[in-house]
């Protein structure tokens, strides 16, 4: 009997696919739709401390090898989301609650206010341009550790997962600092900074000018990051970045991921992508005589 299940710090997933944050997870109904389409877990659109409209359009664009986005963290603000939180808390499958802030206090405040809805997992979005000075919390190991520690203290025994940026010199060091600060797992990677210019308009294609790249173009970057982090930490890793099919997911697992984030693939392959990835992993496991995902997590390191 093939075992497709995996676990992230004690939270069991029926399969290793996870809907990534910011991909259509704006409502409890859409999160349910991800589960109906066989996602192992689903992450909600990051919750912010105050209402925020985000950037003007264009904010998401297909540049030919991936997506480039600068949506700008729109959020109703946690104080206006009780109805949504109530609905999310009724979902039996593992929902990952993503949060962001511009100060450490924002993360703590949001955490204190959402723990009454019993989230199983809180993901710390410390890898979008959300600091007051335009920097990312995850670009500095002390900052990343401080946020992780503060939220961990406020969240009792909820699983805390910082999501890291690849736009750093040494992502493994930052992951290690988060682990020491109490992180239960690491999600890597968020988008890769980039820019595309429309030469006829003579302007960057995004209204915000700069953005984050996702999709097929960044997969090797993500695999390298997960590989490096796996060497340095002992907590589980969610490998995210450019996974389009079962083979890509297996590659990420072999690099050291216990589960995989699925984002842009929803655009390229439709919402059925979770099911097709799971089927392709299953076939590969059969052909290669594996009975469980655990048997090949990080196997490329041996």
């Amino acid at each position, binding site marked *: 009997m093939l075992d497709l299940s995996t676990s992230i710090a004690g939270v069991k997933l029926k399969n290793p696919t996870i809907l990534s944050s*910011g*991909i*259509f*997870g*704006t*409502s409890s*109904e*859409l999160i*349910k*739709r991800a589960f109906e389409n066989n996602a192992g877990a689903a992450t909600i*659109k990051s919750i912010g401390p105050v*209402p*925020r*409209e*985000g950037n*003007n*359009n*264009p*904010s*998401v*664009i*297909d*540049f*030919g090898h991936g*997506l480039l*986005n600068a*949506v700008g963290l*729109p*959020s*109703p*603000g946690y104080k*206006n*989301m009780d*109805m*949504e939180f109530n609905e999310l808390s009724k979902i039996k499958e593992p929902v990952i609650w993503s949060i962001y802030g511009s100060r450490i206090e924002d993360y703590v405040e949001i955490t204190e206010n959402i723990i009454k809805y019993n989230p199983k997992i809180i993901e710390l979005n410390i890898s979008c341009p959300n600091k007051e000075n335009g920097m990312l919390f995850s670009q500095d190991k002390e900052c990343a550790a401080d946020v992780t520690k503060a939220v961990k203290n406020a969240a009792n025994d909820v699983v805390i997962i910082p999501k890291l940026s690849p736009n750093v010199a040494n992502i493994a060091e930052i992951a290690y600092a988060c682990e020491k600060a109490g992180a239960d797992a690491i999600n890597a990677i968020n988008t890769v900074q980039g820019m595309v210019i*429309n030469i*006829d*308009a*003579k*302007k960057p*294609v995004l*209204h915000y000018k700069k953005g984050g790249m996702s999709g097929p173009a960044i997969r090797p970057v993500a695999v390298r990051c997960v590989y490096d982090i796996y060497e340095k930490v002992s907590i589980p890793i969610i490998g995210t970045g450019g996974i389009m099919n079962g083979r890509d997911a297996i590659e990420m697992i072999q690099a050291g991921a216990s589960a995989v984030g699925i984002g*842009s693939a*929803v*655009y390229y392959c439709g919402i059925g992508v979770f099911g097709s990835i799971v089927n392709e992993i299953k076939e590969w496991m059969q052909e290669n005589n594996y009975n469980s995902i655990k048997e090949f997590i990080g196997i490329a390191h041996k």
Partner: protein
Amino acid sequence: MEKEIQKKLTIKQIIDENYKTKTFLFNENIDIKPGQFIMLWLPSIDEKPFSLSYKNPAAVTVELKGNFTKELFKLKQGDNLFYRGPFGNGFTAYSKKAIVIAGGMGLAGVSLLVESLKDPIVIFGAKQKKDLFFTERFKMDICTDDNSIGYKGFATERLKEILKQEKYDIIYTCGPEIMMKTVFDIAEKYKIKCEASLERFMRCGIGVCGSCACRDKLVCKDGPVFSSDDLREMKDFGRYAMLKNGRKTSLQEYHKWRS
């Protein structure tokens, strides 16, 4: 992939349709199905979804409303703008007896559909006489809220009258959501198929960001045209929509922000 790269459009001609509505005709053709939309980009301003009101060459018919349309209205013949698309699912064009019911600017959204149907009944509801457009282009049953011209009363009342007299196979609708909800309820009562083109605040246009969610449907990707089977399940249809920051609110508050 090709359709994702923003392409240039050059304005060939601008037609004044009424005191607040213009048609921008471009030099280019766009291969689009009735009900699909394009994302029109004014660099450094914004990018918004529009349906085409003409196809070869492509044109959009636009009402002066907010910042984007204010900037669009400043453009002159020969100026450039950009688009990506077409996106979304269009109307299903049945070769059957059809009624098209449009409210206000919704008429621009069903123009290509009307042209693709064989002798449809077209009902056009507007607030007042001066808001009308395309009156030469299409043979229409015109209804005005203030009774300044045409049928006295709402377009949906005219729809009921027509249905009482004769049987139709399908009703297509595009316009204010309150009107479309009433149209859908009437269609259900008469057991007639209905297709409605919904509007929500959109960002990506490609089913990724979730800004245009209506219940568990994405208006940009699953719609913008929805059939009776979808509409029956979409409990937010005619009730709720999301603001730019993602907060779900009543349709009234949403429209207040949009107007």
